[in-house]
């Protein structure tokens, strides 16, 4: 084993080195080790997360354009922020994001909790089937999302065929991706397919954290199964459900890959969620300053909402 080899090397080095140096190595104080162990991680995060973040803030007050690095950079104050907050397109994009986040979370929580409840009946083979259910969430959203575009093809796609098989609709009469009405649901459906397993897993952990003796006591008190569910199962699993909602909420608020490959914001801008707007502004229109301001607004929004939510979560947990 590597660690053992390494430590025996350290031992040998320690015995082979002259006394003062050996004492220096042995005497590496806890404080020095702590510093040695933490600083590389901090340095990396500062270089690749914090420094860019500060840079984004600085850019957001300028008219800088990344495709014209030599053009004169002029400060524009808070103009970008004012523009963004009064831009109807931005509000449309926030609405698209809200629609996406709301429906994916609602569907995933309902389905995920129901599945977790069924898996927790511990029928024979539940381990195998749980693993099978997990597979979609392990896969690349981009690569799989790209393939869903094929399943959604109006004439030849499997999805349209299956829908027409069960409903009798003509499979070429509706387009999941191409129509303004259906496209927002097309992305909700794929995201739900991918991430329901994740919500299920966290809910399952919640259900399994409820000790049996509580149910036993309820049985002794002749509480009906229905009542047990509403007074024991649901309240005790609630912090876990809320945690799953938090994780999925943050992820879906910044959703990019799936939507980019499935609809690319289209048709028109019906499915243009915040990240897609950001990509268009930053890497297609090259309005670097403007998109930096938008990025900051998004980050502050996520951060603020997450903080409020965590406070609510803590209140539920401490009940």
């Amino acid at each position, binding site marked *: 084993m590597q660690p053992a080899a390494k430590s025996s090397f350290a031992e040998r080095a320690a015995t082979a080195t002259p006394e003062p140096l050996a004492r220096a190595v042995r005497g590496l104080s806890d404080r020095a080790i702590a510093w040695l162990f933490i600083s590389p991680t901090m340095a990396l995060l500062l270089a690749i997360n914090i420094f860019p973040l500060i840079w984004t803030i600085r850019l957001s007050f300028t008219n800088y354009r990344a495709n014209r690095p030599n053009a004169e950079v002029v400060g524009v104050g808070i103009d970008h922020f004012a523009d963004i907050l009064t831009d109807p397109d931005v509000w449309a994009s926030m609405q698209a994001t809200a629609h996406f986040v709301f429906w994916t979370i609602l569907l995933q929580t309902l389905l995920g909790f129901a599945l977790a409840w069924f898996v927790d009946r511990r029928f024979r083979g539940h381990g195998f089937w749980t693993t099978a259910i997990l597979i979609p969430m392990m896969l690349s959203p981009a690569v799989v999302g790209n393939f869903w575009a094929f399943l959604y093809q109006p004439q030849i796609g499997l999805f349209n065929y299956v829908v027409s098989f069960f409903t009798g609709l003509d499979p070429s009469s509706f387009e999941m991706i191409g129509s303004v009405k259906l496209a927002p649901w097309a992305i909700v459906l794929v995201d739900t397919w991918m991430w329901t397993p994740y919500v299920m897993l966290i809910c399952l952990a919640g259900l399994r954290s409820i000790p049996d003796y509580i149910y036993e006591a309820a049985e002794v008190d002749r509480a009906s199964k229905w009542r047990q569910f509403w007074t024991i199962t649901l309240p005790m699993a609630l912090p876990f459900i809320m*945690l799953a909602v938090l994780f999925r909420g943050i992820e879906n608020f910044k959703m990019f890959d799936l939507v980019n490959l499935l609809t690319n914001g289209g048709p028109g801008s019906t499915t243009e969620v915040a990240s897609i707007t950001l990509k268009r502004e930053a890497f297609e229109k090259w309005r670097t300053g403007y998109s930096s301001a938008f990025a900051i607004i998004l980050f502050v929004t996520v951060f603020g909402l997450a903080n409020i939510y965590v406070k609510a979560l803590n209140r539920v947990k401490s009940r």
Partner: protein
Amino acid sequence: MSRGISHAHSIVEPGPLSRRIAAAVVVVYALVAMVPLAWIFLTSIKTPPDSISYPPKVVFKPSLEGYCNLFTTRSRQTQDYIDTLPPPSGTCERITRERNMVVVGPSNYAPRFVNSLVIAFGSTALSILLGTTAAYAFSRFKVPLRDDLMFFILSTRMMPPIAVAIPIFLMYRELGLSDTRLGMILLYTAVNVSLAVWLLKGFIDEIPREYEEAAMVDGYTRLQAFFRVVLPQAATGIVATAIFCLIFAWNEYAFAVLLTSGEAQTAPPFIPTIIGEGGQDWPAVAAGTTLFLVPILVFTVLLRKQLLRGITFGAVRK
């Protein structure tokens, strides 16, 4: 993971009927959820005409055309020209010629796949190295402002990737790191290390301090105790964390599509760009997708125990 005090004859055990219904629901869900994945595989072994036929074909003659098209670039030639060529040397060449085309050279899929491997494993190794040491320090030492630092580490994950992509794009352009494997490895490490520190700190917190203290009484230094006692004890947690880092780096798309275009491009941004004559070559796309998904599938099935532990871990601890 078990209910703690569950007994075989406990009065709260679900009855046989409720078990059977639960099994039926879960199995039906799992099978329906598998359909798109099965379809990816089936499409990958169809010919292009079969892949776009209506109604969709479930029974068909399997073909390697998708995989051939995935790994080669081809050009259309006249029948007269093809007749002058020596007989085809391999399966792919034969299939290609039936379509009046000849193989011109390899496609970019293999190098993109190799990039994915190098970047995913490289960044995972680095994340684990940084994550384990930082998690140990946070777990065992009195670090000033520890909770603030831990929250800072976590909050770096809330940033939408597109938001930091702009300055990273500019920064990498200055440093000559754009479109390099090293740049992508560092970037994915920065994203993964926050998760790694949080997960690993949880695992290391669970290892009793007494183990190291005993070792140190026996004359080990702190570092030796870390390598000899703590690391072996944390092995399961390290494996679980490594899987997560690996899966993230393997699947990542947003940074890859914005920051790489050639040399260091990974498979996820490449696969959607596979096109044949007149639109996407779906069997080739499906073949590329299948090959890309198989490693993760194998991982998921082989390491499901560690994986389950890792996913539910953050939730269970609270």
